[in-house]
């Protein structure tokens, strides 16, 4: 049982990093970016390219490369595609359709470029260590440390920097933020880069965790990411991490009691319950997205 909690915490760390990025994007721009799963996949494949490809970088450098390139990719997609579209056809429904379609297009593009074969990363074999009652590999420990550091960094960004204040203001009321003179397009670009980088990082970690993967690696966890973010509360970094911990640990622990295939049902039920009973999440959302009554 304790081992399961340990594994759950590792899953939770990866989910948390992804959820931090997703929550930031949703909290500031107020629309769901369904293409987020595609960014995770992008990160994993960027790591493959730098790790197994011509550059032969170490796995740690590859993680950095993945984060940076995915951040750039996310910026390009936002600047070149999403932002113009949303400016032209504003309205939440359009934003949802566009990002939903974008996620599927990116999936198809990945298949065209990289094919459907399973990929692997090159890294030294993980050795499992006993840390207290838990069984973790050196990668697991690094992932967890990363997620804690990134949580602190995100809270510092939002709470203590000028950029963070502008992000929170935009999330609350976009027009008012513009009236106050904030450069909303720049902030949106910054959000795209940061959330993209987090997605890329999480994607590589996921790839390491799963050993072999294909282009759909990101989409498979999108459901869990959504669950974490909604459970914890939109726009709050601590909420995203709390949600991720709850989802990650409960999925691993639940496998002990119910058949593995039914674990998503748990997340499902929790999601529906939160939606109906407390849509703002456990810690409360910082913004009131249009979706709430």
């Amino acid at each position, binding site marked *: 049982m304790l081992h399961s909690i340990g594994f759950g915490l590792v899953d939770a760390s990866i989910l948390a990093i992804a959820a931090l990025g997703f929550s930031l994007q949703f909290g500031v721009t107020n629309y769901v970016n369904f293409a987020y799963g595609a960014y995770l996949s992008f990160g994993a494949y960027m790591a493959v390219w730098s790790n197994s490809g011509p550059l032969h970088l170490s796995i740690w450098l590859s993680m950095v490369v993945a984060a940076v390139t995915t951040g750039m990719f996310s910026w390009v997609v936002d600047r070149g595609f999403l932002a113009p*579209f949303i400016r032209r056809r504003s309205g939440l429904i359009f934003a*949802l359709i566009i990002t939903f379609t974008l996620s599927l297009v990116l999936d198809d593009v990945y*298949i065209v470029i990289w094919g459907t074969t399973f990929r692997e990363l090159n890294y030294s074999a993980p050795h499992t260590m006993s840390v207290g009652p838990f069984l973790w590999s050196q990668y697991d420990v690094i992932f967890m440390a990363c997620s804690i550091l990134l949580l602190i960094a995100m809270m510092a960004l939002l709470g203590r920097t000028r950029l963070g204040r502008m992000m929170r203001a935009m999330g609350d009321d976009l027009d008012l933020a513009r009236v106050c003179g904030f450069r909303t397009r720049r902030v949106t670009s910054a959000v795209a880069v940061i959330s993209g980088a987090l997605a890329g990082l999480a994607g590589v970690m996921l790839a390491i965790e799963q050993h072999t993967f294909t282009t759909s690696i990101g989409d498979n966890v999108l459901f869990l990411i959504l669950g974490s973010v909604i459970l914890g509360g939109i726009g709050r970094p601590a909420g995203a991490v709390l949600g991720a911990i709850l989802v990650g640990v409960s999925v691993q622990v639940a496998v002990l009691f119910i058949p*593995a295939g*039914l674990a*998503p049902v748990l997340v499902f039920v929790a*999601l529906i319950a939160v*939606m109906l009973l407390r849509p703002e999440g456990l810690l409360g959302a910082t913004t009131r997205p*249009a*979706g709430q009554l």
Partner: protein
Amino acid sequence: MSAFEFLIISLGTFGALNGILVLGLNLQFGTAGILNLSYFTAVAVSAYATGVAELHHAPGGLVQYIGGFGWPFLPSILFGMAVGAGFTFLLGSMAFLRLREDYLGLTLFAVQAGCLLVVTDYPPLFDGPRGLVGLSGPFQSTLSASGFQVEFLALTVVVLVAVLLVLQRIDRSPLGRIFRAVRDDETAAAAVGQDPWRRKTAAFVIGGATAGLGGALFATYVGGWDPGAWQTPETLVLLSALVVGGRGRPLGALLGSLFLIEGINEAGLWIPTIANRPDLLPSLQGIATAAALFAFLWWRPQGILPERRERVADFERRRRRLAPRRVRRTAGATEPGRLA
């Protein structure tokens, strides 16, 4: 029947089936404004329900699924439709209580993703990735293969026409106007006495029943149903057809499904395998579908056949039909207070 004839007939059948499905989504999204990203999940639920109604009890061993009643064609179809409509009702009634717009989209997306995960990874339900096989259409055992193809084509075309007429009727009726009113301005509709929850749920369920009908027919036509048939992109294909053809107008939706879905499917048949990669074609088709959607959203979001805007002339015509003008009395008749 030659291969070419078979091709044409099956294209026609798939065209009709997709048409039925698009009409259901049109009611939910086009008319009532509910972006239902989990539309194909309802289709799948009905397909599976039809399957477990038609098939006999699971033979055990490696093949497992719930149910297995062994019913004939028609009761199975009706059962599938009912289950699909019931699922849609449950989902919609819960979701519309507290959620709007992006949270609603998010929840429906999550429902679709979650259902896929559960059904694929939990074989006792519907045999997981293998899915149900061995479904059959009406009189399939007594007809030849080509006879069955022709029969099913006729069946689906008849059903399509019926569904089109019914949904057009709803679209032009007061109920359709209420759906559009709730879509355009929920607060205003509530202010004049419409309960948005009831109306949205009603539109959702009627659309879901249509999805169910389509799903049931689909499953019995292809003879089976597995998770590969209802992956996430399927709803996108229907959505694209809707946006391209004309959102909110049943005929437009049908047009979109014919042009876009059939067109892209058919184009795929004529393209030879590219660079020894057979997996490339579905992806290119997906990109083409999405490109069409983006193009139309950018330049013409109302689609080829836009929604009919009600004009004063329509209103006048309806008023005259419902309350014929009474013959005026001739001048000079006694009417208190009236000058000559």
